[in-house]
């Protein structure tokens, strides 16, 4: 009756492995403790962090952006930098604040992970274990609406609702990368064995990008460092009528 045998021993092993492997993986994931990432962090240039690739903008957007970058470079070379968001004392917003020009503070509390960037006292709240809202239900802002959950030791975050005029990167007289209102930022935040915290960022925006733009920021701990206050109080830089960044100097006797 050998012909009636449906599965041989090898097949049974393969089948059992196929069933058990995901269960084991889930069990391992569930048993991986949530890492303690609370504290102060600064950007780290580490060999494990790849360089940021060029944004995969669609040809028309790429052309426009490169022209703006070129114009900004030429203007700066003439000693006339173009006014940008820093001239207007505006914060960076998402995802640029994760570039941590100044230190970051991460706070883990019940149902929420909060990230503060010292410059401009930027704050983002990642709401844990909640469904994401449709983009159109989020009022467009600098930081958008972030939800997240822990997958083992990895904080998986999803952000939508970043305003179109909150460009990605830029600053220093240079324009940031454009995006549409439908941009979605996916992050995987994890603590490596080397002590480096990494934020693997994937920006999805089929309106503007040909494919998702993926890059990573790395951070190292700043033991004992408490974030300082930052209020953009008296910006003497201003945009003149041509949109150039100028500086207001003191006139004695006034």
């Amino acid at each position, binding site marked *: 009756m050998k012909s009636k045998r449906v599965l041989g021993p090898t097949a049974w092993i393969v089948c059992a492995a196929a069933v058990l492997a995901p269960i084991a993986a889930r069990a391992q994931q569930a048993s991986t403790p949530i890492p303690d990432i609370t504290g102060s962090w600064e950007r780290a240039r580490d060999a494990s962090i790849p360089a940021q690739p060029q944004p995969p903008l669609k040809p028309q957007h790429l052309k426009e952006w490169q022209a703006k970058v070129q114009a900004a470079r030429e203007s700066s070379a003439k000693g006339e930098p173009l006014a940008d968001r820093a001239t207007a004392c505006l914060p960076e917003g998402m995802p640029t604040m994760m570039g941590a020009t100044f230190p970051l503070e991460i706070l883990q509390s019940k149902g929420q992970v909060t990230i503060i960037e010292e410059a401009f006292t930027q704050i983002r709240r990642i709401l844990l274990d909640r469904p994401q809202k449709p983009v159109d239900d989020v009022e467009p802002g600098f930081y958008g609406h972030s939800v997240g959950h822990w997958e083992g030791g990895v904080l998986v975050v999803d952000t939508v609702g970043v305003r179109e005029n909150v460009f990605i990167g*830029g600053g220093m007289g240079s324009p940031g990368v454009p995006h549409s209102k439908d941009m979605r930022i996916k992050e995987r935040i994890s603590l490596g064995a080397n002590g480096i915290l990494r934020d693997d960022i994937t920006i999805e925006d089929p309106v503007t990008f040909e494919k998702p733009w993926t890059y990573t920021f790395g951070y190292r701990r700043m033991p004992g460092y408490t974030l300082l206050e930052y209020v953009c109080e008296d*910006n003497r830089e201003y945009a003149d009528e041509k949109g150039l*960044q*100028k500086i207001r100097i003191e006139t004695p006797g006034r």
Partner: protein
Amino acid sequence: MVFSRRTGYAVGCLILMALVMVSAALAHHSFAVYDHTKTLILNGKVTKFQWTNPHAFLEIDVQDAKGAVKHYTLECTSINMMQRLGWRSNMIKAGDQVKAIAAPLLSGQPGGLLLEVTLASGEKRELGVPASNTFKRTAEQE
């Protein structure tokens, strides 16, 4: 035409690197309004040390050999960066005699970017200007 293809590739890479570097620079504000080719030495009396963000400012009166006084506005970096370098708001006060090394404004206005200052106590302090090595120190006496 291997050479030209390679050259084209190299140029393409350089442009790409330049574009990426623009977005990756760890600073907020452009200092392109300042002259990167020379610096001034200003021995003067402090009229104000403005401890604010986004940047601090040092105001000084500089007297020339004939006794004429010229006022200079010197831009510093963020007070957060300065504090991380050990700066405190009370390190300079009005009336202090200081020696400042600054990159002058390209516009010719009496102002500059403060790169280094010798305090009244004789202590020298830098400001932590990003890419400060791109400002050539020629130290021309004003």
